[in-house]
């Protein structure tokens, strides 16, 4: 009996040390995922309680944060499974993103001669811009740019190929930049100018293949 208690206590302590330290990260990501404070709270709570229940399946020493985010992403998707509307919306945006691809010059995602405009935008407008991204792009931009996950980790968290992560990240950042610029123009921070041209998503494989073929050597 006493042994059982000690084991449970150790497990709880390990959970505190490894998992609960990521609560802020989960909460912030949940805010972007759900776009609603109450729903974000519920999502974080559900995620962490699930994680505690399955903590024995988590392999010590592996990336606990990524494991938690994977649980949260799946939980969020399951909770919203019945909602078809988001899906159709995404399809529309996907075709929009595809049409954007016909433009093209360079791939510096946030590169922009007047990059100082972002400084002048208030936090809320920037947050709005992120929240206005379609769900699949939004979550990947948040995971990459605010939570510092690698492409590979993101691919595992959202259960999709690394190529999809890269193209969604590229498009998501493009859309985000466009929305930020729109906000800046709206507020008179930037003059209204014709859009800069865009380019196709970059692929690491392409780059390596080119290198392999001795492309520019």
């Amino acid at each position, binding site marked *: *009996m006493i042994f059982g208690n000690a084991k449970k206590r150790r497990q709880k302590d390990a*959970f505190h040390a490894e998992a609960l330290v990521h609560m*802020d990260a989960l909460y912030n990501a949940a805010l972007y995922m759900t776009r609603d404070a109450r729903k974000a709270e519920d999502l*974080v709570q559900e995620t962490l309680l699930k994680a505690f*229940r399955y903590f024995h399946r988590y392999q010590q020493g592996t990336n606990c944060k990524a494991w938690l985010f994977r649980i949260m992403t799946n939980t969020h998707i399951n909770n919203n499974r019945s909602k078809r509307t988001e899906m159709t919306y995404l399809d529309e945006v996907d075709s929009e993103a595809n049409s954007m691809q016909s433009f093209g010059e*360079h791939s*510096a995602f946030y590169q922009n001669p007047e990059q100082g405009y972002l*400084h002048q935008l208030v936090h809320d407008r*920037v947050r709005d811009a992120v929240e206005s991204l379609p769900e699949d792009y939004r979550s990947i931009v948040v995971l990459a740019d605010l939570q510092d996950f*690698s492409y590979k980790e993101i691919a595992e968290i959202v259960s999709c190929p690394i190529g999809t992560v890269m193209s969604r990240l590229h498009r998501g950042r493009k859309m985000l930049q466009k929305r930020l610029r729109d906000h800046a123009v709206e507020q008179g921070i930037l003059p209204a100018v014709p859009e800069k041209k865009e380019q196709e998503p970059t692929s690491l494989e392409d780059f390596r293949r080119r290198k392999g073929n001795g492309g520019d050597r």
Partner: protein
Amino acid sequence: MNCEDVAKYSALYLDNEFDAPERAELVAHLGQCADCREMLKAEQAFRETLREKLAPIETPQYLRQRITAEIDMLSREAAKEERQELFWGWARAIPLIAAAAVVVVLVWPEPHTATVDSHPGDDAVAYEGVPANPVRAERSPDGVRAMTVSYPSPVSANRVQGGDSARLSLTRFQRLPADVRGSEREILSYMQPRVSFRLIAPLRRSANVQLVGARQVLLGDQPAVLFVYNVRGQRVSVLQQPSLAASVGSVKLQRRGTLTVGTFDRAGTSNTVVSALSPAELSPALFHR
């Protein structure tokens, strides 16, 4: 690596996705090219500003407390369950001794024959139908009413049926003394000293409505009683607790999934009824409608 490559792959570099040789190549190019340096610096600055603007919000304190408390509870319950399983594993091995011990522990107040009910499935309360062979107050051959007292099985009442591991069972009563089965009068007189409020039979007794048994439970820190009825062959559970409301309100029965749920006040008690019966079938058993 040339300027075109840097422009095309700078994001991969800034995302830390380049391996060491690729990175070295790009850095070497930057060493020679002021334009690319500027461009990368600007992009890096944009990213940093974006992160600043989206500075993380701290988790609200109440959420943090709620989650920590839930985890404490889960942890305690898991430990308790393990202990109970250990204990019951032992007890099953020596059932006679365990049974005798339980009878002694119960300290039966009246000179009835008290027997320990050793069917663990029988007292999984509240959410199931009446067992195939419902236990009723029986008359022993000599005409003395026999009463059955059962010690709560450690596990059966706590497992939510259906394998939904995500759902928590809120009802954990292992520490409490007993289930009791018998007549309405016997059940009430057994339970009355164990609670701090005046008990009253929650349902109207009739040929179709029989009190099967009751169990003492805790709601928060307050003792409460869970009555189990057999109404037209279906199990009906009524949880009774003290009520501050003096008024006698009407009953509202609602269909929740496959269950009918309702609450009503009766003589200083607040009652919550749960059953698989339809509201129309259940309603005649209630004192007020």
